[in-house]
């Protein structure tokens, strides 16, 4: 078949993006997983709020919460959620230096140092939280 075409009306070819474009490249897949991880971050927050409510309502309510959260399905969900939250945190900290241009005495701070500072702050806050809970 002869395509409709004249010298003055070139017919452009537009390639459509596949629905599975994010599978075509590792970096795209990591990006989509990182976006997806926010759902699990949100779930973690909801779970934490439910825990706080249960604790504030006293013993029996707390026991019911513990029982509910130790069900296999809930346990599996929280294991997956933990993995995604850690993934979210790590990718976030790795990307943070790219968004920040920090200067100390006129000199640009190396990106690795900015990332390191973030990880250090993370470790410090986690240790503080662990100390508060376990003491």
């Amino acid at each position: 078949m002869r395509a409709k075409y004249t010298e003055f009306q070139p017919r452009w070819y537009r390639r459509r993006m596949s629905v599975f474009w994010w599978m075509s490249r590792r970096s795209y897949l990591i990006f989509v997983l990182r976006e997806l991880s926010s759902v699990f971050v949100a779930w973690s927050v909801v779970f934490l709020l439910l825990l706080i409510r249960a604790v504030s309502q006293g013993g029996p309510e707390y026991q019911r919460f513990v029982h509910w959260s130790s069900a296999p399905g809930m346990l599996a969900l929280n294991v997956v959620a933990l993995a995604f939250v850690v993934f979210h945190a790590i990718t976030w900290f790795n990307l943070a230096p790219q968004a920040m241009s920090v200067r100390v005495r006129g000199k640009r701070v190396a990106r690795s140092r900015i990332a390191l500072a973030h990880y250090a702050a993370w470790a410090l806050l986690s240790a503080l939280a662990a100390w508060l809970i376990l003491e």
Partner: protein
Amino acid sequence: MADHIILQVTRYRPERELEPTTQDYEIPLREEWAVLDGLNHVKDRLDGTLSYRWSCRMGICGSCGMTVNGEPRLTCATFLADYGPGPIRIEPLRNFPVIRDLVVEIGDFMRKLPQVKPWLIHREDAAAPEGELLQTPADLDEYEQYSMCINCMLCYSACPIVGLEEGFLGPAAIALAQRYNLDSRDEGAHERMEVLSTAEGVWACTFVGECTTACPKGVDPAGAIQRYKLTAATESLKSFLLPWRSA
């Protein structure tokens, strides 16, 4: 090293086909040849009908961008020998309509670029500067990286958001806006914000980061966009807390 290599080149001849096809060309494999040299060999010796863009052969003009083995590359800076034993797949840049063979239509980018006013803006109500506007090496360092952009559009080809969201300003345009925003001689940051801090500006970017990976000049458009997000967020917070200052 083998002495020949196959180039699998995408052909699209709108006057006779509805969809692109692939054509193989066997060319000599020489260590000093870039992919562009291979295409020039095809054009000069094997098939004069092949269409593609090129000019400077030295990574400055930004016109020879193509997709080489699935990656957006400047073909003048991509060597055949690195792809041995081949074959090498050469396609037009992605996320752009194809006019013919390896030639893409770049009007969309050319319309978006001036929207960010990529030039030095001097406030009209201020007095004209007397003499040169001097800069220190530190002032230059603030924006120099972003000034390296050669408008080759490899970042547009690498970015999935460009392909999905038609209106997205795109990585290079935003990086070039930052090139002027961060210039100590420029006073146009406020004007550019109206274009940059929108759903089709920086906020469309989801930080895939591939623009930076693809950039042949080390511009880091992803970094420029994220830095601007921080600036835009700070500015909108300031105008919320101190409304009398933003008037």
